[in-house]
């Protein structure tokens, strides 16, 4: 604390107190209350109703589908994120800034557009629609469409975490490994990967949270076929629109718990390995 804080005159103290109260009050009403309302509304008709609406067949199918989509899309984006970070942080080449802009692009595009582009590509009237139809392959209103839209939405997360970190770390250790005779993959697994592991985990965490929680993009490509193409957020929407509020909030609690778990691990990683995650662009996720 600075000297200024030691003995503030009383008007200043009151001012500070009011400002603090205002901020804490805002955070409580604006962030805590929506979180609380999810759990209270879900348990409105008791624990039994809550559990039985989570145990329903469609809810379980939605949970399975959400996990499936995340299990496919997150690893693919991890591979891409590591490759893109290696490229962006270790080499200079023409068009690098443009490539960086395209990596960031999915963050600033409306989720609806992320779904729309795949409908225009693979939908019945899309570029590949007739060909896909002739070969009886379904992408839109089916699981592949959900996976593609999710990959698009979560594409930047891992790369965004790794690029600034690897840039600030520099390549001295990797060059040393090479000079000492390490092969490319040896260098990668023994030097690069250990240096970025916590940032990688951090990126995977955020990527996964978004992949499981994405709504807009998957909503456009899903077709809302119960039990087949509804992920958990879509199941929340459908139940809500059918006035099954307890059911909607029950599924929502699972997603809220996922969000809280993500925040807890994220905060833990920041406290414990802050320096090794470091340098991630403010507000970049």
């Amino acid at each position, binding site marked *: 604390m600075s000297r200024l804080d030691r003995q503030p005159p009383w008007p200043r103290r009151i001012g500070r107190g009011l400002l603090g109260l205002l901020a804490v009050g805002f955070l409580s009403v604006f962030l805590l209350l929506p979180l609380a309302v999810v759990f209270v509304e879900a348990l409105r008709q008791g624990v039994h109703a809550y559990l039985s609406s989570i145990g329903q067949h469609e809810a379980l199918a939605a949970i399975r589908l959400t996990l499936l989509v995340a299990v496919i899309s997150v690893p693919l984006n991890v591979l891409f994120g590591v490759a893109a970070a290696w490229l962006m942080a270790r080499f200079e080449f023409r068009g690098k800034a443009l490539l960086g802009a395209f990596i960031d692009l999915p963050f600033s595009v409306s989720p*609806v557009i992320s779904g729309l582009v795949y409908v225009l590509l693979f939908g019945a009237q899309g570029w590949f629609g007739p060909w896909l139809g002739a070969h009886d392959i379904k992408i839109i209103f089916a699981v592949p469409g959900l996976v593609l839209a999710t990959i698009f939405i979560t594409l930047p997360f891992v790369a965004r975490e790794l690029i600034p970190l690897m840039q600030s770390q520099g390549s001295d250790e990797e060059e040393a490994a090479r000079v000492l005779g390490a092969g490319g993959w040896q260098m990668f697994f023994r030097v690069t990967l250990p240096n970025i592991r916590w940032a990688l985990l951090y990126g995977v965490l955020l990527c996964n949270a978004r992949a499981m929680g994405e709504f807009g993009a998957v909503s456009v490509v899903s077709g809302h076929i119960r039990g087949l193409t509804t992920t958990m957020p879509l199941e929340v929407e459908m139940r809500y629109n059918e006035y099954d509020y307890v059911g909607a909030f029950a599924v929502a609690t699972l997603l809220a718990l996922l969000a809280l778990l993500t925040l807890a691990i994220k905060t833990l990683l920041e406290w414990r390995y802050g320096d090794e995650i470091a340098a991630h662009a403010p507000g970049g996720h």
Partner: protein
Amino acid sequence: MRRRILPGFGLSLGYALTYLGLIVLLPLAALAWKASGIGIGGMLHLLGSPRTLAALRLSFAGAMLAAVINAGFGLLVAWVLVRYRFPGRRLFDALVDLPFALPTAVAGIALTALYAPNGWLGRWLTPWGIQIAYAPPGVILAMVFVGFPFVVRTLQPVLASLDRDVEEAAESLGASHLQTFFRVILPVLVPTLLTGFALALARAVGEYGSVIFIAGNIPMRSEIAPLLIVEKLEEFDYAGAAALGMVMLLASFALLILISRLQRWSGRWAELQR
């Protein structure tokens, strides 16, 4: 250029380009192609329709207003979190990221449950004639919610690195507390605050999930542009959806360029402070 000692340039370049090409560029090309299909006349007709105009106005003006509100509250919260020590501070600090982590559909139904006319907060507001849910204020509220972390997280590191000696100098020279804030602290924060503002704005313009539940989606009144795209798709008006999508996409591009300019500006500004 010296010979590259590090391996994997070809592999990572090839992989990244292929992946980006298939996942991002090819679909965007399909969007541009489909959008161009309706021609200039069709585009003008689409953009000139009152319903489209109202939706675009709500998405952009609403996002603008939400970003202004976020700049104010974000500055307040960032200030208190950086400068004050109070029990639970770290918890509140972690909580700031909640809108990033909470799926938008969950945020949407939770906000609706709070602000609907019979909701937790809505029932106290309705007697005063204040309607939030199912009206434009609800749209803006949801936009404030999703954009909130951007301003706080952008400001925090800059606030933490501010040199307090300057403030003390100002006060010892007789400046009041408010004068110090507006004349000494705020000018330094302007580029960062604008960056956070633009990030929140970009997020809010395209926001869909958290808005559609609370908005009520009344055409001409509380219908946002992304929802209009979805509705056009459901009516099989693919060209219309693509054209409207293209307009939104171009707006996002413009914001993206603005944000990177602002980030460079605030980066240079931070250098100058040292």
